[in-house]
């Protein structure tokens, strides 16, 4: 059914010898890429391999330094996104790109509003927006709601709907599922299959290789701005894909050193905040990793934010070591807790500042009573962490924005280690990073939980929030599931499977 069989067929579009540099960084270095009509083509590669850049060139958001493109066999060189859209190319960008102040319908039809008598045709706009949403199973969503008032997951649905509404022949999805619920992902896949059947060409970018195996017909692997492999998805295992992406075989994704849980360091009793979480109780011990599973919007982020003093505490108790009650972030750091935010770009890191500034940001351990800073000392300190974690940075004063996603995440983790905290609150620490970086982060988390006398690291207590179930099952000692603001009991990892986790997350398996 996927038109791979006819080799004579003209590709829907093809890109030849595409190169693109940002200053001294060569993001793309002669990439060839083509997609047939009626095909779902996965584009995979490590962070910074150039996937987004390649697709931005196709969609007219960037212009290549060299190379050529054809569309249905004709030369194609869009100068603006508008031009590309008229040619039938629609793209969902990796970073959520919506106008929060506009209602859903205007976001979906932005830039291509139909008009009558010079005015925007509100009825037509609403209708087309509804149609696009209906494809995704959201036909009943009120299109008059401001996007800023929607939960994150629904926003992503709106963004996908926008691409569908173009009525395009080519659809590019750059990590569309990073904050979708499982049901929504299934719905999306159904839609994509429907489009494929109608002869659309679809490019699918994802770090979830299982998804790639499930949905894609063929795949292309990018590494360091070059095409290093391609083939039919059915003929290659996930391990083979990983091998092509990182240029070697990955030994063990989830390392597990012997851990010996110690005293309770963090305890929550019937904790609640507004609007979420509602009623959360748990205990976290030194030397263990407690995983929090749940659907997007279940309230896990809000739980961490409340524990860390970024959100107010409405009711209930918190106890960190000997300190009880709510405390603000500066106090939490002093008490030995640290947090990694799920929103790396906006909250987790100050991307315009250097690696050193980001690691040492609050400087509480780096200055004396007078608050005097010695820049050289700071840089030396940062260099130590760069070496310890193998962060790929040229120097401690390099701006964080120039690092790849995985390396950025390591900077965010290094901050906790630099502060020498005992309790780590990690919110989606591997979101959006590639499989090799993930394995490094897992290694790091494992080392922290078990302790490393060689590097004089004491065992830590780790609370890990993740929406990626294999990761939770691979890394944690115990897992608890959150559903609509309520946390179920924490059970040893051996008692869970992906299936039971899912049931609990959807509210069907909460009773013990």
């Amino acid at each position: 059914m996927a038109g791979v069989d006819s080799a004579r067929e003209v590709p829907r579009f093809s890109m030849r010898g595409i190169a693109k540099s940002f200053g001294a960084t060569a993001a793309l270095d002669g990439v060839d890429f083509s997609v047939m009509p009626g095909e779902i083509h996965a584009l995979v590669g490590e962070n910074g391999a150039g996937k987004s850049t390649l697709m931005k060139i196709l969609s007219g958001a960037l212009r290549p330094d060299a190379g050529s493109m054809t569309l249905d066999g004709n030369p194609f060189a869009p100068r603006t996104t508008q031009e590309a859209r008229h040619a039938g190319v629609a793209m969902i960008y990796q970073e959520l790109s919506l106008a929060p102040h506009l209602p859903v319908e205007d976001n979906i039809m932005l830039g291509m509003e139909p008009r009558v008598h010079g005015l925007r045709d509100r009825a037509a706009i609403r209708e087309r927006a509804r149609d696009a949403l209906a494809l995704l199973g959201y036909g009943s969503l009120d299109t008059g709601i401001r996007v800023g008032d929607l939960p994150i997951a629904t926003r992503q649905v709106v963004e996908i709907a926008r691409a569908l509404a173009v009525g395009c022949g080519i659809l590019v999805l750059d990590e569309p599922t990073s904050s979708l619920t499982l049901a929504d992902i299934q719905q999306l896949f159904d839609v994509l299959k429907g489009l494929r059947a109608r002869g659309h060409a679809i490019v699918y970018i994802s770090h979830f290789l299982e998804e790639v195996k499930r949905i894609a017909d063929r795949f292309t692997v990018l590494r360091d701005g070059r095409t290093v492999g391609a083939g039919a998805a059915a003929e290659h295992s996930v391990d083979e894909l990983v091998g092509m992406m990182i240029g070697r075989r990955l030994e063990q994704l989830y390392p597990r050193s012997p851990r010996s849980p110690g005293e309770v360091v963090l305890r929550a009793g019937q904790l609640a905040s507004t609007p979420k979480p509602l009623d959360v109780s748990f205990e976290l011990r030194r030397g263990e990793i407690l995983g929090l599973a749940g659907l997007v919007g279940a309230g896990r982020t809000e739980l961490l934010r409340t524990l860390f003093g970024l959100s107010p505490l409405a009711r209930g108790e918190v106890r960190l070591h000997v300190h009880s009650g709510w405390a603000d972030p500066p106090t939490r750091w002093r008490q030995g807790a640290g947090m990694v935010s799920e929103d790396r770009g906006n909250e987790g890191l100050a991307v315009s500042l250097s690696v050193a500034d980001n690691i040492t940001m609050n400087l509480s351990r780096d200055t004396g009573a007078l608050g005097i800073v010695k820049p050289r000392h700071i840089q030396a300190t940062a260099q130590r962490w760069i070496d310890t974690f193998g962060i790929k940075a040229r120097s401690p004063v390099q701006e964080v924005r120039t690092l790849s996603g995985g390396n950025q995440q390591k900077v965010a983790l290094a901050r906790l280690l630099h502060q020498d905290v005992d309790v780590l609150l990690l919110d989606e620490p591997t979101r959006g990073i590639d499989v090799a970086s993930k394995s490094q982060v897992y290694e790091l988390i494992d080392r922290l939980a078990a302790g490393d006398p060689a590097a004089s690291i004491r065992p830590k207590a780790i609370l890990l929030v993740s929406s990626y179930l294999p990761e939770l099952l691979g890394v944690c000692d115990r897992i608890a599931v959150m559903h609509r603001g309520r946390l179920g009991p924490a059970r040893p990892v051996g008692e869970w499977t992906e299936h039971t986790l899912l049931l609990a997350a959807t509210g069907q398996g909460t009773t013990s």
Partner: protein
Amino acid sequence: MKRFSSLAQTLGPLAGLLFIFGLFAVIGPESFSSSNNLETIARQTAIVGTAALGMTLIIISGGIDLSVGSIIAFVTVVIAALLQAGVDPFLAALGGAGAGILCGFINGFLITRLRVVPFIVTLGTLLVVRGAAKGFAHEQKIDAPLTWLKELLAALPPGEGWRIVPWGVWLTLALAFVVAGVLVYTRLGRHIIAVGSNEQTARLCGVPVDRVKVIVYSLGGLFAGVAGVLQFSRLTVGDPTVAMGVELDVIAAVVIGGGSLSGGEGSIAGTIVGALIMTVIRSGCAQMGLPNWVQEMVTGGIIVVAVALDRWRQRRKASAAV
């Protein structure tokens, strides 16, 4: 879940206006709530209100325009010069509005071409346009023959009470309706909100961001120009020193009315209410014979309190309704 509704957003400022008005009606002189005084308040609001229409668009688009006071002064000078040269009053007013559009277009052009933030560009044109007005007028007021233009904002002559307020105020109201309509019913309006809400997204979706900005600043210039026509109507002379510092009143009107300086938010109805609040405070303080310094302090205090209350209300609503 809440629906997109600009009416509800205006309720806060409106309540503030009614409260302040009520306060002065109670503690101020009796004449304060007379229809006569209401007309005066309307007339005094017309100029800032008209300029604030354009500023609302600019602020919604995520920008700011500090040059609006200078444009008003420049326009009064242009009109006076045209009238002096024997041009028909209607054409002279058109010429003034045209001068306003030109200034606004220059703002928009510089902002989009030089990629310098609006604050700086319009800080520059604030000086340049003011200087041009003074130079053009040879550093003095330009006298102009009296024409019907002066009726635009004059107090109603007896027997014309059916008009309720002078034509100039009707003009402001009519323009307010048009702009409110543009925001809701046209593609341009949606594009303005999109640019202010998320410029990156707007660009990716094929909104011609630069063109939208140039149009927005040109419209800002147009409304400053119309405000200049009204200002001329009050002065009956071209005065290059008039309206100094008015930009702050205008911006305050927009922000009191719910506009957000980070873009994406603002409403025409709110802006008009904001402009009225400022006039009512000034008029009430003056009629109670309060010294100017008290008036200044009260105005400043109310700006902060009004915005603080509005933001607080919105935060509360947001956290209650998600």
